[in-house]
């Protein structure tokens, strides 16, 4: 699906990508990680046909630069930072759907699943939405159409737990016939979403490894958490994750999306002294 050979890119003499080669077969899910300035964004922009470059970049056998419409018709892209578009939500959906030959209602349905009521917000300027709402809308534009390649830059960073869960389900639905390239500067943000990790350092690949994980994108971990004492801040955190209180704030039950488990542990880490017991079970939890 993606073939990159000896890709180099410079800006005013400064080498940002250096002789980089990467092959990603169809259907693979790859995390693109690296520190700020490692070259992730430049690589993504080369893949989107937005930069000129030395070397070869091909998506499904075509150069995204010279065949941009044919390539981009099958590419869904979610940027890390939403652009400050002055269009209304409705106008953005109509514009994107018309260009992508999709249906704005299909995009609106994806947004609705992520907890964003597009119909109510259709006259609202995109720039005036909250960070999370913008992210949901951009995800809806990317996933509300037929794609073969998804390129996403920290797509779930601004999403609440419910929206993240639905987002993972959407990715799971597409996992069979989509290649995914998910970029992040933190591996723990995306490790559970992918099967392969490519790390960039100073414009070159410093690590290309497989992720040992049997979980699927739509797996759900049923959780029971027992606390030593009731604490308001823990309760707030758990409610945000959709947990229910069983015994006056001491016993909590809920479900954590498999790809979100690291993030869940990170959220609990600051209260670790309060945790008396914690169980996570991927099978259906009837008795807790």
């Amino acid at each position, binding site marked *: 699906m993606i*073939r990159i050979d000896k890709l180099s890119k410079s800006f005013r003499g400064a080498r940002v990508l250096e002789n980089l080669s990467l092959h990603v077969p169809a259907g693979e899910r790859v995390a693109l990680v690296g520190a700020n300035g490692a070259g992730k964004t430049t690589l993504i*922009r080369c893949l*989107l046909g*937005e*930069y*000129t*470059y*030395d*070397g*070869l*970049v*091909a*998506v*499904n*056998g*075509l*150069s*995204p*630069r*010279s*065949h*941009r*419409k*044919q*390539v*981009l*018709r099958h*590419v869904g*892209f979610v*940027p890390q*930072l*939403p*652009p*400050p*578009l*002055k*269009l*209304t939500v409705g*106008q953005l959906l109509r*514009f*994107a759907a*018309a*260009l*992508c030959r999709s249906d704005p209602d299909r995009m609106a349905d994806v947004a609705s699943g992520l907890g964003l009521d597009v119909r109510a917000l259709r006259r609202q*300027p995109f720039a005036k939405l909250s960070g999370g709402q913008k992210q949901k809308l*951009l995800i809806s534009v990317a996933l509300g159409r037929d794609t073969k390649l998804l*390129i996403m830059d920290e797509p779930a960073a601004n999403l609440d737990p419910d929206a993240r869960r639905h987002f993972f389900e959407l990715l799971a639905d597409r996992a069979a016939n989509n290649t995914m390239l998910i970029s992040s500067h933190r591996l723990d943000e995306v490790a559970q979403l992918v099967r392969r990790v490519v790390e960039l350092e100073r414009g070159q690949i410093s690590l290309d490894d497989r992720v040992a994980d049997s979980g699927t994108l739509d797996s759900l971990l049923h959780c029971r958490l027992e606390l030593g004492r009731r604490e308001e801040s823990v309760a707030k955190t758990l409610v945000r994750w959709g947990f229910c209180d069983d015994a006056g704030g001491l016993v909590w039950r809920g479900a954590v999306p498999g790809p979100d488990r690291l993030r869940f542990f990170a959220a609990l880490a600051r209260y670790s002294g309060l945790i008396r017991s914690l169980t996570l079970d991927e099978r259906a939890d009837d008795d807790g």
Partner: protein
Amino acid sequence: MVDEGAGEIESVVPERRSGKRLRLGSGGDFWLVAWLDVAESMHARWFALYALVFGGLVSLLFVFGLTESQILGFLGLSRLLVTYIQICMAILPIFILITTVRSLAGDREAGVFEYLLSLPVSLAGWFWGKMIGRFAVVFLPVFFAMAAAAGWAVRQEIPVPWEIFAFYTALLAALAWCFLGIAMLISTLTRSSDVAQGAAFLVWLCLVLFLDLILLGVMVQERFPAETAVAVALANPLQVFRTAAMMLFDPDMVLLGPSAFVILDAFGTHGYLAYAIGYPVALGSAFAIVGYLVFRRGDLP
């Protein structure tokens, strides 16, 4: 920079390389991007200010009773139009240059280009759609202000010089297109909105410096050949507009400087009016084409 991906065709019929000839892009892209630019501009503060300035100008001219006064033989709506067109010449080019380069370069810096150009839109459709959308946005408020004045005059039974009105519309459209082409080129050549605004202001300043009055003051004083002064006046779209605008009310060229006499002798009234409309359009199109070629070959965001 080389781009070798096209050599790796697997299954899709190869598209003609976009570098071979200039195309407007597929019709759908073109109109969608034009619509996008209009919709974006409608929500922008600069557009509100822009529309307010030209609408306000016409209102002020009415408030100050220009339709009822008579100066140098101009009266009724003619008096208002001649004042309006002179003010347009002073502020329209700089407004178009600054607002266009500021919003395009600003959009590029803010990641708008990165996102919107990740959608399947052709580069030709994107560039020319932007240009047409922006033309509608910058020209229509100027035109509507003038048309509103004419409508009001008709209602008040004040005579409207329709032929002059039509020529002014064409002249304003040509001027707007010319400076829009320059602005599109500056936007593609510069990478930051600060540099783009500086360059736009410099271009405008140079053209203002080479207006007829300065030609008269400096070039004639320094005993430059008359042909040089005339050539500069003919090459400067601002001077071309100024001469044509005044010619409609002042066929004897009493109000204009010496270069205008030479120009009139060479072109004749109708010939010069045709030149005054055709030349800025051709110049603006040439700048825009160069801008497109630069845009297509470089980094987009």
